[in-house]
């Protein structure tokens, strides 16, 4: 496992004897498969956090607690995973048993993993506080985050508010906004699409990693679980330009959308709740990067488009400004200088009626291509071996592009 060793984090505290880098494993698999296939190993990673006294602290800034509630909806594979997750987090204001000083004592002064939910009010620090300092003054979350982040091995921003500022920062970047972000809300290491935020663009935690962003409004429970289990196992996730774990946020929502055939056929709905592709009803799926289209939400039940709701782009920085008004047609990818995603992802879910036809075509094609397999395999290995940096980035990175000027 030479490539895996490369990705092993250098710090001692989180150095674990485990070969499982769950985010790398996600590269070649369908969304959802890593969690069901490696549930035992994921649980083992969380168990070690408890047994080895790894400290995980979960702070809430200007949050709605939606990301925590989303976490409670994580289904794969069984609920016991959640139990281990909760046990491994020493301080969580919504889920813990203690209150007051006893609760605060559970926050280690140097947590191994610091998780932040909610934005941080920079202009009005008093707009989100936790506990009091030695002088009895309310202690701003801003101070907690700055202090604990400097001592943490890994910092994870959960949800779009902690990652990029989110709703409390809406309008902050828009000169035409009437009233914008009255508290100066900021993400932990980003303000909208710009690096910076509370900790500044140069910040790295003890592991030499910047803040890992796991956005979404709310975040997907699988995304938190896979990211946390990976760092607890001592691996450094490869991040995209907005510091999101790459495998989870590489596909466009549009890529694997079940309404994709309607898009290709230019069969557009004019309003949410109608049949057809929702692009003209405001769908941001052609601009939003996450694997929700196949991962789905609430234990694989549905995702927005299944009920006729256009994607609001909730995983993207500054989506409250970039994708509003929500129900107006978004700019095309061409208009922001992006390639039109013409080809469907190779992992697209075939519609039932097309499955048989696909199979009939696929079998002879596979037979014809079989002799080429050794050549493709060799090329793949070479590509992987000499890839730019480590076990994930060998894959073509669709995120190597800039967001359109706003």
């Amino acid at each position, binding site marked *: 496992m030479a490539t895996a060793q490369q990705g092993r984090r250098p710090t001692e505290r989180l150095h674990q004897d485990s070969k499982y880098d769950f985010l790398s494993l996600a590269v070649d698999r369908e969304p959802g498969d890593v969690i069901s296939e490696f549930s035992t190993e994921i649980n083992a990673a969380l168990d070690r956090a408890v047994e080895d006294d790894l400290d995980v602290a979960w702070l*809430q800034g*200007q949050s*709605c*607690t*939606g990301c925590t*509630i*989303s976490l409670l*909806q994580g*289904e794969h594979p069984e609920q016991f995973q959640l139990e281990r997750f909760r046990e491994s987090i020493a301080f969580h*204001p*919504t*889920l813990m*048993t203690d*209150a*007051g000083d006893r*609760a*605060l004592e559970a926050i280690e*002064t140097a947590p191994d993993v610091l998780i932040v939910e909610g934005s*941080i*009010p920079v*202009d*009005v*620090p*008093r*707009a*989100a506080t*936790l506990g*009091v300092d*030695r002088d009895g003054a309310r202690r701003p979350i801003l*101070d907690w985050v*700055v*202090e604990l982040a400097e001592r943490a091995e890994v910092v994870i921003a959960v949800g779009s508010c902690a990652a990029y500022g989110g*709703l*409390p920062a809406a*309008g902050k970047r828009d000169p*035409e906004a*009437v*009233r914008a*972000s*009255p*508290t100066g809300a900021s993400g932990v290491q980003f303000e909208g699409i710009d690096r910076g935020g509370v900790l500044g663009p140069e910040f790295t935690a003890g592991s030499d990693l910047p803040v890992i962003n796991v956005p979404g*409004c*709310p975040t997907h429970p699988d995304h938190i679980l896979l990211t946390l289990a990976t760092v607890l196992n001592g691996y450094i996730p490869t991040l995209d330009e907005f510091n999101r774990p790459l495998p989870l946020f590489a596909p466009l929502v549009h890529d694997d959308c079940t309404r994709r055939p309607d898009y290709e056929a230019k069969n557009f709905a004019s309003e*949410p*709740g109608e*049949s057809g592709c929702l692009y003209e009803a405001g769908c941001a799926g052609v601009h939003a990067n996450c694997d929700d289209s196949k991962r789905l*939400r*609430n*234990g694989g*039940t*549905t995702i*927005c*488009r299944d*009920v*006729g*709701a256009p994607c*609001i782009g*909730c995983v993207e920085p500054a989506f*409250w400004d970039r994708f509003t*008004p929500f129900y107006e047609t978004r700019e095309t990818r061409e208009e922001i200088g992006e390639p039109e995603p013409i080809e469907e992802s190779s992992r697209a879910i075939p519609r039932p009626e097309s499955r048989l036809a696909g199979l009939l075509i696929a079998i002879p094609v596979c037979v014809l291509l079989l002799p080429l397999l050794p050549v493709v395999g060799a090329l793949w290995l070479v590509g992987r071996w000499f890839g730019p940096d480590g076990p994930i980035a060998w894959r073509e990175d669709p995120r190597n592009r800039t967001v359109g000027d706003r």
Partner: protein
Amino acid sequence: MPEIEINPTTRIEGHHSTTIDVRDGQIASAKSHMEMFRGIENITVGRPPSDVPQITQMVCGVCFTSHRKAATLALEDAAARAGVFGGVPYNARLLQNVMEGMFLLWNHAIHLFTLAGPDYSDAVADTGYARLNPNEGAGYESALSNQRTLLQAFTEFGGRAPHPLTYAPGGVVAQPDEETMDRVRERIASVDEWVGPTDAVPEVLAAVRDRRGPPSDARGLYDMVSVLVAAAEEGADEFGVGPGRFYANGMFYDDSGGLVFPGGVFVDGSVRDPSRTELLASITEDTSHAWYTEESGGHPQRAPPPEPAPDKEGAYSWGKAPRFDGQAVETGPLARLIAAGDDPFDLRSELGGDPQRSSTLNRLIARVQEFLLVRDMLGEWIESVDIHGPLRAEWTDDFTAEGVGLWGASRGALSHWVRVENGEIANYQIISPTLWNLGPRDKAGNPSILEYALEGMAVEDPRDPVNVMRTIRSYDPCLGCAVHVQDGEETRFVGDLESPRPTDSLGD
């Protein structure tokens, strides 16, 4: 005498702390602090009305659908006044009944088992009720699993949860088909199986009291009733006693154009149902102890632009103090059941001592009663939705008018107040249930409902004021939504504008 600051209050949604001044083993005074402000209402200003339900829903990741519902009601009211909206199809209201019903069951289950329940578990208070223990209690575990199932059923219409996407002004934009309805029925049937039959309440109550194990066909009911019996054994009928004034907004639509649970006000020992005009005129907000300027208070539709004042002398909360006819009133399931004149199985009379008593125990009992009442109506609502019928009326954002949305959210009376000018939001205001229950004092020094309920309470161990925590949590406080302030004009913060700075004041 010790002044105790409990900061943070945990196992609630959001940031809260409580200061209690204990003299001679009794709480002489209490202060309820809301510790967070985001300015969500500000952010709606200048945006199109259709975007507002999405924005205000994100106020709270726990009561998301309640805020989305109240926002659509406020906009529908305004558009109707402007003459550009003809009303929501009853079929869409039925689908909203289904969604709100599943949501209420989910919310009450989360509260009873994960937020309030641990206070009565063996793990926290040696009560002997080990099934309620967080982490490994069997009752707690099955509740966690069933809350997931409830939200999965909700998601069939909402797309995802928290933060669904389908309520819109004019109705619901969901696209249910027969398969959707079958999956919803299946999920609700499995939750029903967990809860057990409502008729079993007396039998289950006896089983809990006799410390017999749960009957196999009513495990959920057994655990919910266990919370109540444990609370009664801990004396919760005697503490957390509020002033006994209640206010409820109605909820769920019936086929006669009314609401299944009526709204109402209970003051001076009797219930009355004020007209909408009277109700709206009676609500004011006071900012004398909130971090906003004095001028920011008043009637939510007429108040001048509120201005935050983070360094204001005497202020101690980011919540304003809402008042009904100048008085603090309690809201929540207990208020709703008092307004409806209902006490299923006489639980509040017999277990709680008095059906109209404002106590920590009665708040918990009312939540269980309401859970069962709504559960028993849900199946009928599901069957009455016509998936081929209209789910949304035509809607335009282009109008100028004011509107108010009143709704019975799971935590109590919620109101959204909106002013739309030429298709843009000019003014927005939210008064949440938690603000009614946990706000600060008013100008006359009259305490909020929580502050009133805490004052005079005996505190045996100031280091572990367990009954104080039980009382706070009995209101199911949710503070994401208690943020405040909006207006249509530019105002700026004064005072604290420091840049981020590291500190070394952590106790290490």
